[in-house]
């Protein structure tokens, strides 16, 4: 446990400069915009102008074979207006750059208070495991999509910035 935390910390530190450097405040984005694509091992950054991000499944730490959960840690939140937001994590079975009309929802969650970081453990269902481990699924096509949505979508975006650590396949606490 300690070694994995250390590894995660080191990993996060490696990319914290990149994460901070990418912080920008811009206007609302079009909902038509495709998720930005993150290279492997880059910390995810969701903002009001880029509320969706995807990364290849191979960038997830750990082995999905025996995993019971997908751990998603929100490490930093800048949300001065306390805009209510919810997060959705999908598995997309489509080549990068192409749209997937039916991604598999792995889990969804919110922050409370909405400027407080948190670690979420999303259960790996048999359906998800099958999708991940199936010989017929080209692994290069699998991507995780992280989406941040306003809970009241009638209201305009305000500046918000959320950092997400490298997601990881894990065994569940027992």
């Amino acid at each position, binding site marked *: 446990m300690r070694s994995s935390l250390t590894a995660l910390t080191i990993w996060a530190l490696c990319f914290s400069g990149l994460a901070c450097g990418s912080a920008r405040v811009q206007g609302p984005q079009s909902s038509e915009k495709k998720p930005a694509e993150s290279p492997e091992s880059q910390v995810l950054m969701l903002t009001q102008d880029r509320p969706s991000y995807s990364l290849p499944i191979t960038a997830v730490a750990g082995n999905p074979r025996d995993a*019971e*959960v997908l*751990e998603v840690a929100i490490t930093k939140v800048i949300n001065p207006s*306390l805009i*209510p*937001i*919810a997060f*959705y994590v999908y598995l997309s079975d489509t080549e990068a750059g192409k749209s997937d009309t039916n991604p598999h*929802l792995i*889990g*969804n*969650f*919110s*922050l*409370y*208070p*909405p400027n*407080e*970081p*948190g*670690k*979420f*453990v*999303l*259960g790996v269902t048999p359906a998800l495991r099958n999708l991940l481990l199936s010989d017929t699924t080209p692994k290069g096509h699998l991507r995780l999509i992280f989406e941040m949505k306003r*809970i*009241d979508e009638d209201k305009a975006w305000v500046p918000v910035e959320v950092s997400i650590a490298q997601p990881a396949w894990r065994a*569940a*606490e*027992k």
Partner: protein
Amino acid sequence: MEDLSLFSRRDFMKGATALGITGLAVWSGACESACEKIKNRPTRRNIANLPANDPIIQTYKDAVAAMKALPNTDGRNWDKQADIHNNKCPHQNWWFLPWHRAYLANFESICRKLTGNNDFALPYWNWSTSPSIPAPFWGNGNPLFNNTRSATQTSVASSLNVGPAKITEILDQTNFFLFASGSATTQRQRTSYGILEGTPHNYIHNFVGGDMLTFRSPLDPVFWCHHNMVECLWVEWNLNRGNPNTSDSAWSGFNFTDDFVDGDGNPAPIQVATTLLFPLLTYQFEPCSPGMAKAAPIRDRATLEKFLREGAPSKLEFVKRFELRPPRTTDLKQAAPVRLKVEPEAFRTVLDVAGREKAVLTVDEVEPPAKQDVFVRVFINKPDAAAATPIDDPHYAGSFAFFCCEEHPDIKGHEGMTPAATPSASASPGAAPASTLPKLTYLVDVTPTIRKLSQGGSLSSDLDVTLVTVPIEENRPAETQKVSLGRLELAVARF
């Protein structure tokens, strides 16, 4: 309401033992008058099922208005209640559920006290089936209205976050930590969110907005009904579906020492193990989940037994043991004192309120009398205790009883700290005719009594344990004249 006759009094005693001895003390200490109260315990209802003029809603309004009118020197004051949450609430860890259970129970008690409505049960907002903030929470001048909300009366919560499919997914989760959030070592340590807290709970705080976005969220009266829904889902998951809570004693033995105030505004410290008994003994729920067909928080006897036996904590480490020379029987209304010379040092760790060690009295191989119309009271350092000695005497530690009268040939030994019930080979000479029920073991947490006596300077090195058998009903003579006991042991146990 479930049929409590399904469960014998003995089940509750054994169950309480499995849950933790603090819980046992709570149960046993009140066993004389609690039966009817338990059977008729108030039902927490879905607020959507209540007409606008329902007394439950009116009482809730009156209570909130009364709390807002209290001076801020009173712990029951509305703002002071929000301060408790702001300063103490555990989130993102495994004490999230029991802490809020105790918080709600005390709040409910305050509502009753301030309104004089002793039948009041806090209603819940079932956001899964009624995804808009319910009508009773709207209207200027309404004590239940909060004008900081961002949600309007027509706003609808997302079904992906709180809808029936999500609730089914949550209730299908069998791992306590994934259901109820991750383990922690301190009350406000943030470790990991379980699905119940991280998804519908957090979402609704965001959906309502305003005060609900912050840790001062109890300023909005909808907070209490929101958390009552969370509570109902825990009851459904744990009690009805038989999913065990963690057996880690670090969880169940944790004390919320300086958090809550009761209906009278007095401090109300409580241990997690005790909160586990609340939905069994003090309230029940109208159905709140898909497939929860009737208002029976416990489906059947087997489910309850499974829950009680597998529930936390399953481990209890005995650090020191002091066997007492037992009386063979306790005669009706007569004291049966036994004396043990115990070095005061032996209890030093027990006296530490923040410690994890407790003093436990084990009364083993008790033969349930044929007519179970008595109970046995336990006193510490009160050799002259008698049936007339009141239970608010500082030496009173608890009592145990022999509820109901059915035979249970299927009772087998079970894991955990309680020794297996053993078949009664023969009645002890001199004892009342015994039934064919197995011999029983009772644990009584005598820690609060020992602490109380120590603080009062009356805990000597010679420790007396006195047992007094009294009729269950004060005004009805008991047929049972003696209760046969086996071994008595006082131990220091670590949770």
